[in-house]
């Protein structure tokens, strides 16, 4: 399979689980966070593209993948059901940028940061180890998570490309 055929896109407020040799991608994250959890031994993992920190503060709660404190537990659960072993799971965290500012609008501004903090808190509670992160800044990111290697490639427009 070539690179394109292996890719599975994870849209905004979605989470998906896959196994090697697939590549989970998520394009153009700004203040959203991208959370990946991976089992290196069984080569199974997942990615969530999350918008908001807390489901308790939003009106419509139907889409659990929209918020950190429901998306990450669901992501973990789905990986375990797909054959992942809790002992081998490692998480990576990206996104949470502060895109640009209207001075008057603090609630939105902190959303990126709040998404990052809440993600770390939830991962800690679930006992999933956070092994790498590329967060913050004022720019968007596209993610390519290779389930063969567990490497997460991050592309940006003006801040280069890196792998964590």
């Amino acid at each position, binding site marked *: 399979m070539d690179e394109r055929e292996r890719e599975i896109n994870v*849209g*905004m*407020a*979605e989470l998906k689980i896959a196994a090697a040799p697939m590549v989970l991608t998520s*394009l*153009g*994250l*700004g*203040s*959203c966070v991208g959370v990946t959890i991976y089992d290196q031994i069984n080569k199974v993992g997942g990615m969530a593209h999350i*918008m*908001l920190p807390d489901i308790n*503060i*939003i*009106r*419509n*709660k*139907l*889409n659990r993948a*929209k918020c950190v404190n429901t998306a990450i537990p669901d992501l973990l659960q789905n990986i375990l059901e797909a054959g992942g072993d809790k002992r081998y799971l490692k998480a990576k965290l990206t996104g949470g*940028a502060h*895109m*640009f*500012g*209207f001075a*008057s*609008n603090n*609630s*939105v501004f902190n*959303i990126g940061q709040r998404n990052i903090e809440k993600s770390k808190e939830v991962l800690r509670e679930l006992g999933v180890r956070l092994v790498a992160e590329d967060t913050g800044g004022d*720019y*968007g*990111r*596209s993610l390519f998570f290779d389930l063969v290697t567990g490497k997460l490639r991050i592309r940006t*427009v*003006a801040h280069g490309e890196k792998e964590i």
Partner: protein
Amino acid sequence: MKERIVLNERQKDTLKEIGNICAGNAATAFSQLLDRTINMNVPRVHFLPVEQVPDAVGGASQLMVGVVLQVLGDAPGVILLLFPQADARVLADILTGHKSRGKGIFTEMDQSAIKEAGSIVSASYLTTFAHFTRLSLIPSTPGIVIDMAGALMDYILIELAAASAYALLLDSEFVDAKKSVRGHFFLLPNPGSFQAILKTLGESDG
């Protein structure tokens, strides 16, 4: 908590009609600013799940220049003008009267000129919208972002997503006669503003 979906076809048509007149006036202001004819197409009215907005505006990874203004007053919301990067380059060249060095480089001067153009077009659109709805609507100062469309949109959508699962999107495409400047003008009322707007149009359900 259940959320009622509040927009029917008749309401959509009314919004489209008003949006069309607003966009027409905005196009006139834009044409005068650039000293070339800018046409705006009949707007599309989208009422869709927040998650689908990035696709509706052309794909999350497209490189865009976005000018964002907050709408303050009786029906708060957000205005977003989106230009593909190459079109924003042409726009900046026209506005500043300079020939650029590289297509991807936007100087402070370029950015400020694009923001100003966004401000003028938005003010013109909102003035007309306020006239029809008799709502008081005031644009904030503009901000500019040069990045992927998804990254630009999620920032706007996040606040909306907290209040509603759906977004109302009035989308007007504009293009000059030479087809070298093409872009989209979006008005996204906050969920609390949907009803306020529909009510003033005599289109509210209750």
